[in-house]
Every structure is written in structure tokens, then in C-alpha cells.
């Protein structure tokens, strides 16, 4: 009772990174609250899925396995969560801010009359004093998220309703198993107790889903380009630099919108969050929505012809110059000095 729950997204029997990241966060929260961490896995052919989950410090895995539960559809997954949450009364429930989590979360929160905060960038435990009601709440979940197009950061709380629900984008939290030998329990759910035939009102007729070949999230080095790269052709320079350094190419939204780069490369508030060892920002002005997705990079180099570009304030090295001059030189001197 009153534990921390994480809904696990499953595609082809694999648990989504966003869910493993949430389990890592969930573990920290559960430890702070001295409660258990529980995972919910809904899908088909989930045999042995608990082995993937336990190392993240999961104490209980609730499994609902039925051919009709994969791929994801709204009503059966929400019916299971709603009923399970009514029985187990979690204090916190987390899910990915993905097309699944953002379809499911609001449905569940509406049925349970619980608050839901979308797209959190940080989750913390804290207290709250309601001066009007002269009441102090301990151990609330602070749901921290950007608001108003990223121009402000708001801390949201749900003082009275449970579970406190939040969604988090992929890549925002770190994914870290805590113990390969961690032992939890499996609670196999009897699916018929949770869903009825009418829940299968929507069926999937066609599905074309491909794992993206672009994986900027785990690249140790990211060479990222903005609108200042000028064109799709201009981006070729970035691919050259990324190739010699052994990195991936990222992009700002302005560059993606202009068609210079693929959407899967977008970094920032509405793209992915990255924290590579080295981030080279080329022709990116550094609006907050972009910085929000890369500021935790270990080393940041900014190349911009504007000495006052906002990106410079978060950079370790600022190269004031034209990308077309600077990038070829980086390649040249890297080739000369490496090996």
C-alpha cells in the first residue's frame, strides 16, 4: 500500500528506456519515502520480464499478460491501471511522457480524480504548508516542469489526491540499475478481473513502427547544429566532424523545422534531453528550450559568430567565428593531433 508505481512501456517484449529511467527515479523516491517500488507490465509474452526489472530495485512487478493487450490500446491498459490503483492505493504513479503515457495518464487520472503533471523535468520530495488551511503536508511529490513555452519553471503539488501522478520525457532522468541480484516479487494479474470485452472497442488495423536508427541519446559526443548552419548541405560539415570524433549529430528545433535535420535529432524541451561527455553547439543561439535539453553535458563548446549568443553563457569554450571556418579547422587539427 501507498508505494511508488511505475507503468512500464513495452514494445516487442522490450521495456522502453523511458520506463527504466522512471524506475531509477522511482527507486530513489521510494527509498526517501521508506516505501516500496512497484512496476506494472501490461502486454503479451511477458515471461521473464521481471528479470529485467528487479535490478532497478523493483520490489513488486504486477504483470498482466494477454494477447489482446499488445500492442497498446487505451481502454484495456487504463482499465487495468485504474483498478490496480484502486486496490493498491499508490502514493505516486509515474509514466513516460510519450504517445502511450500521455494517452493513458490523463484517462487514469480522470477516473481516479487525481492530479497529473505532464512532462516533468525533475521530481523531488518536499513539504508544503497551506497557510490558509493551517495545515502542513509532509513528503509530497514536487513535480517540477517548464511552463509557458519554457519561459518559467513551475513546481506543482497534489496535496490531497492520490496517486500523485506525473509523466516524464525520455532521456530526462538517468537510467541506472542498482543491483543485478535485487529480488522482488511477481504479482500475476488475472486479466479477466480487470478488463471487460467492451474495453476492446478500438482495434489496431495497421502498425508501422521502426526503432529509430538515430540514437543521439546515448552518444558520448554530440555535434549539434542550429539554424546558423544555413542549409541541409551545411549540416554535412557536422556529419564530417561527428564522424571523425566518433559522435552523433544533433539539431535545434529551428534547424529541424527548416528541414536541415531529421526530427529524431532534435534536442531540447520538445526533443530529447542529452548529457554527453562533449557537446559542440554550432550556429545555435541557445534559447532556453534548447539549453534545457543539453545543459548537463560535461563539456560544452559553442561556435557562433555572435559573441553575445546566449549559448555562450553555458559553454565551457566559446569560439567566436563562422561555422564554415571553424568546423573544418576542428577536423583538420583533430586528424593531425589524434593517434
Amino acid at each position, binding site marked *: 500500500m501507498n508505494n511508488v508505481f511505475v507503468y512500464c512501456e513495452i514494445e516487442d517484449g522490450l521495456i522502453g528506456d523511458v520506463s527504466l529511467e522512471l524506475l531509477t527515479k522511482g527507486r530513489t523516491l521510494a527509498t526517501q519515502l521508506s516505501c516500496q517500488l512497484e512496476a506494472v507490465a501490461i502486454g503479451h509474452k511477458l515471461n521473464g520480464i521481471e528479470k529485467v526489472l528487479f535490478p532497478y530495485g523493483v520490489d513488486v512487478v504486477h504483470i498482466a499478460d494477454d494477447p489482446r493487450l499488445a500492442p497498446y490500446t487505451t481502454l484495456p491498459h487504463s482499465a487495468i491501471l485504474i483498478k490496480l490503483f484502486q486496490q493498491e492505493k499508490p502514493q505516486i504513479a509515474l509514466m513516460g511522457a510519450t504517445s502511450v503515457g500521455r494517452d493513458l*495518464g*490523463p484517462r487514469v487520472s480522470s477516473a481516479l480524480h487525481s*492530479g497529473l503533471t*505532464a512532462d516533468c523535468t525533475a521530481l523531488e520530495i518536499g513539504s*508544503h504548508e497551506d497557510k490558509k488551511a493551517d495545515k502542513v503536508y509532509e513528503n509530497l511529490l514536487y513535480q517540477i516542469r517548464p511552463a509557458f*513555452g519554457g519561459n518559467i519553471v513551475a513546481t506543482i503539488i497534489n496535496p490531497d489526491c492520490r496517486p500523485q501522478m506525473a509523466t516524464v520525457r525520455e532521456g530526462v532522468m538517468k537510467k541506472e540499475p542498482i543491483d543485478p541480484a535485487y529480488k522482488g516479487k511477481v504479482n500475476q494479474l488475472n486479466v479477466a478481473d480487470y478488463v471487460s470485452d467492451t474495453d476492446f472497442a478500438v482495434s489496431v488495423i495497421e502498425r508501422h513502427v521502426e*526503432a529509430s536508427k538515430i540514437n543521439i541519446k546515448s552518444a558520448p559526443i554530440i555535434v549539434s547544429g542550429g539554424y546558423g548552419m544555413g542549409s541541409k548541405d551545411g549540416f554535412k560539415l557536422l556529419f564530417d566532424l561527428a564522424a571523425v570524433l566518433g559522435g552523433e549529430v544533433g539539431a535545434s528545433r529551428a534547424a529541424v523545422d527548416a528541414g536541415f535535420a531529421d526530427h529524431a535529432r532534435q534536442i531540447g524541451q520538445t526533443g530529447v534531453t542529452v548529457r554527453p561527455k562533449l557537446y559542440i553547439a554550432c550556429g545555435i543561439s541557445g534559447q*532556453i528550450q534548447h539549453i534545457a535539453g543539453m545543459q548537463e553535458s560535461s563539456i560544452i563548446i559553442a561556435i557562433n559568430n555572435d559573441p553575445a549568443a546566449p549559448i555562450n553563457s553555458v*559553454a565551457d569554450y566559446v569560439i*567566436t567565428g563562422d561555422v564554415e571556418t571553424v568546423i573544418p579547422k576542428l577536423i583538420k587539427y583533430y586528424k593531425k593531433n589524434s593517434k
Partner: protein
Amino acid sequence: MSLNILVLAKQVPDTRNVGKDAMTAEGTVNRAALPAIFNPEDLNALEQALRLKDKHPGSTVTVLTMGPFRAAEVIREALYRGADKGYVLSDRAFAGSDTLATSYALSCAIRNLPQLDVIVCGRQAIDGDTAQVGPQVAEKLGMAQITYAEEILSVEKGRIRVKRRIEKGIEVLEGKLPMLVTVNGSAPACRPRNARLLMKYKYARIPNELQAANEDYISLNNSREFLHIGEWNVNDIVCEPAELGLSGSPTKVKKVENVVFQAKESKTLTDNDTEIEALIQELISNHTIG
């Protein structure tokens, strides 16, 4: 088959074009400095509704918005593009609503309307980016939902088929009517205002706006039914007052901060060869690259 279609549209501050004066010194949002616009994805939603109407002659597209009286502007914009009727749900009792209280109020208002076949929403509103109101309205009305839609492919024999865009591809879903669909920004853009409809609906008003108008205007509006935009307040819907506004909102804003980034101490270089080579050597020697 003619369809009864509802579009949920919101008037939002234009957060995409936030100027320097949009934030007050205290770090709160200066709403007055932001123009109010038709939420972008709600325009995509309206277009899907209008396309359904094109394919199914005799259908009606109704638009419902909850907000201050000036949100009637959203209804007019929809009428100019081909919607048939609009309602503004406005009351102080709704102030401070989070998405749950908003969807509760909207769902109560929707019960005032004749039986609907399809409700179309935007995926999300740019003032909150939550994408919650659509699914929550569906849940409150006991309807199924299809989110992230890019195209309503067909409505036939009481079933709707929708193509949706998800992170790694597309899905085509099919389900029984009634259905609530939320539409992505990647869906086709909304048609422009139609000149004829602009002339027709230019003077469409909610009663509250008419109070400030002159006599001629009022009599013109009174004589033409199609110029009446519906105006509902809390007394026009059947609801539980405790579920509205602040008291009906489980989420509370504890704190709001302006975004400030810790400026780092940075080394500044030029594009000079010597400086660039030195930088590369430094990165290699500290194992950042290489």
C-alpha cells in the same frame, strides 16, 4: 450519413513568440503582453472536423470553448472557416481550473448538446503543453479515444478509422462511434477564412459582447439567429460546484521561477588556427576526445 461533430478549441497566449516584456520582475507571466490566439493544434482539429463535414453533407460542426468572454473570437474564427455553431462556456467559478477541472466543466457542457458522433480536440494547448484535456473529457463522457491523430481516414457504418502518428511510426486504429479524437500538429493545416463566411459571421457575438454594442448592432444580431454565439455559465450546466475551478483541481502550483541558467566560466577563443589546435590538444589530453 450526416454526423454531429464537436470541436473543443481553446484561446491561448502565444507562448511561441514570447518577448522580453512577457515576464514580470517577479517572474510571473504577464499575460497582457502576449497576444491571444487560436491554439494551433485546435486549428488542425477544426480542419479534420470540416473535412468530415465535406465528406458527409448535412453534418454539423459545433465549436465549444471555455474561457473568458473574449474567447468568442475563437468561435468566430471557426465560423469563418466553416463551422456551424459555437458556444462559449464562461464563469468565474471556472477560474483556476487545472486540466481535470477543465475537462469536468467541458464534459458537463457537452451533455447540453445533442448526441455527438465525433469530438475532435487538439492534441495539446501551447500554454500548458499537457495534452490531458482531450482524454479526460473522453473518460468523463465514457467515450473511447484516439490521440495523436494525423488524419481521420473514414467514418462508415458507425465506425471511425484514424491514422495516428507516434514516436517511431504510424498506426491506423478503428473503433465504434462516438469517439473522441485528438489531433497532432503534423496533421494538415486548417483552411483559411472563407470570404463569404467572413461577411456572414462578422457580427456574430455572445450576449455579453452585445451589451457593449450599439442599438443597430443589437437589432441586427437579434434578427439573425445565425449570429448568435451561445454563452453558458455555471447555471447552464448540470455540475457539482466543488468539482469546478480551484476546488476541483487536485494540482496546485507551489512555486514559479524564472528560468536562469548558471553562467559558466568559459574560455573564449577566436577562429585562429593556433587557438583551435590548442583546444583540440587540450581535449585530447584530458580524454574528452580521442
